[in-house]
């Protein structure tokens, strides 16, 4: 009877979690759906508390209280710009839990008088600690790079891929050996240590700009570790949730690679973003047209359609509120303002949407690249703020450019392009941007925060004067 109740709780939990994920397909239902998913997690925890294998609550209560006390401040105080590293940080905990469960299970099975483990369970256990400890150290490095505790440029040395390959082969050998000889304790811990090393070596050579792909991939590994735990504990809720997450993480990493026009292998082993990869083609002979805030305001004031192309620079300048105020002012004067969001705007997919939503920009004004790219042609002004590589026409035309083939926003097709920028420094990938030298492009130099405020003031002054 008790067993039936526990399994019933797990079934309810699975359904709530799947429906919760499904709610994320609709922005208006997402919040409620995820609250249901949280209830699903609670049901799984409560169900486990009456599990027949749970004899005492001493450790459980300590763990639950400690975890809640630690998790709450992390979630409530982290700024929205820091969400990518916070997710990496959370992964450390989730994967560490999976690894520790695996160690506890293995340790108990092989103490004198323990019941031992079959080869099948050992295989699952091996995958669990392998993926678990790889995710722990990998996420740790990813967190360090995103938080800029570690240098975000790729750290490389000669023969790196060969060393990694060798380590991976030894690790796989250890795993196979362990499956054949389950009681080999030394091999079990060696496997864990090797996986931890690989986690470090795999992430260190990847540049900061590619870190979101890594975080997403580690997300997938954490899910697979959870699924492996499910196989070990013969527990379906773990298998289901692990599979969901494994699929989601893998899918998102592929989507991200596609948005950057890079192959998976290139992101993981290509050490992109090193200064050497930057194009050496400088455009010293070309000139840019600089514009004053007054003139730019004049154009915006009489524009009937404006598209804003925001990049991470906007968030760095903390200017999301200012861009919304400017947009509202243009709308009040009868213009239409839309936001064009590139899939890799911000520091992870969808990050820019969150940052703009935080500044009260309604989400129905935010458009995905494919939905808005045709609209630039009949747009009066495209405002590019803090974005660079994602609007570089070289991606369409210049075969020698490192970003050639990357899908970009067609900001250059707009009648007028207004680029807000600090100076002429190149973007994340270190590539010269042809957009800045086009005839219809005007540059408004200065801090985005100040420039946007100035534009708003100037438009208001125009309205008052008219």
């Amino acid at each position, binding site marked *: 009877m008790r067993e039936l109740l526990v399994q019933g709780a797990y079934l309810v939990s699975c359904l709530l979690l799947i429906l919760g994920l499904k709610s*994320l397909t609709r922005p208006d239902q997402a919040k409620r759906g995820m609250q249901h998913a949280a209830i699903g997690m609670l049901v799984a925890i409560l169900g486990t508390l009456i599990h027949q294998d749970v004899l005492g609550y001493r450790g459980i209560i300590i763990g639950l209280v400690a975890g809640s006390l630690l998790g709450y401040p*992390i979630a409530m105080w982290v700024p929205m710009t820091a969400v990518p590293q916070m997710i990496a940080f959370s992964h450390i905990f989730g994967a560490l839990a999976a690894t520790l469960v695996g160690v*506890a299970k293995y340790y108990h099975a092989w103490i004198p008088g323990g019941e031992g483990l079959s080869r099948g369970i050992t295989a699952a256990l091996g995958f669990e600690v392998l993926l678990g400890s790889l995710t722990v150290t990998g996420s740790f490095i990813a967190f360090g790079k995103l938080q800029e505790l570690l240098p975000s440029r790729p750290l490389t040395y000669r023969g790196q891929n060969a060393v990694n390959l060798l380590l991976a082969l030894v690790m796989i050998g250890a795993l196979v050996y362990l499956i054949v000889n389950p009681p080999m304790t030394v091999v079990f811990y060696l496997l864990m240590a090797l996986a931890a090393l690989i986690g470090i070596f795999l992430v260190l050579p990847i540049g900061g700009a590619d870190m979101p792909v890594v975080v997403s991939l580690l997300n997938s590994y954490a899910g697979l570790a959870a699924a492996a735990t499910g196989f070990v504990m013969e527990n379906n809720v773990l298998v289901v949730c692990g599979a*969901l997450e494994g699929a989601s993480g893998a899918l998102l990493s592929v989507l991200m690679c596609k948005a950057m026009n890079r192959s998976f292998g290139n992101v993981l082993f290509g050490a992109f973003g090193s200064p050497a990869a930057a194009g050496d083609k400088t455009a010293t002979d070309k000139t840019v047209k600089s514009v004053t805030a007054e003139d730019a305001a004049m154009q915006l004031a009489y524009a009937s359609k404006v598209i804003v192309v925001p990049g991470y620079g906007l968030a760095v300048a903390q200017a999301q509120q200012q861009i919304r105020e400017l947009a509202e002012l243009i709308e009040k004067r009868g213009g239409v303002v839309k936001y064009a969001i590139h899939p890799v705007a911000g520091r992870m997919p969808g990050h820019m949407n969150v940052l703009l939503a935080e500044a009260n920009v309604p989400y129905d004004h935010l458009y995905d690249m494919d939905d808005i790219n045709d609209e630039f042609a009949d747009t009066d002004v495209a405002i590019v703020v803090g974005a660079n590589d994602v609007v570089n026409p070289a991606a369409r035309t210049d075969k020698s450019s490192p970003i050639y083939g990357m899908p970009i926003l067609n900001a250059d097709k707009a009648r007028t392009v207004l680029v807000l920028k600090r100076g002429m420094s190149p973007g994340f990938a270190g590539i010269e941007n042809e957009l800045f030298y086009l005839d219809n492009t005007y540059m408004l130099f200065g801090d985005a925060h100040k420039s946007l405020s100035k534009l708003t003031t100037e438009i208001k002054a125009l309205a008052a004067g008219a």
Partner: protein
Amino acid sequence: MSLTAVMQIYVFLLASVVGYLVITRVPPLLHTPLMSATNAISAITIVGALIMAGGKYGFVAEVLGTVAVACAMTNVVSGFLITDRMLRMFRTGDKPAAGKGEARS
């Protein structure tokens, strides 16, 4: 291979397909909340941790299990709360006047 293992592989494959079908339909608008949501869901390992911490497997497992429960719970709490914090920010522009007055942080 035991029957349990076969059934579990069955469940794993079906759940992967469900995951794939659901995730492909999530709009890019919500990809960041999606990642933090799946991050929170990966903390389902708390179920295994709770059983280890429950004392049936001896003292060492109980200690490791307790640490695992703490870690997984941190992931559960932080993951779901930050997802909720993000999703609360997403609102439409249908009622701009009311929206500003009632804006919650």
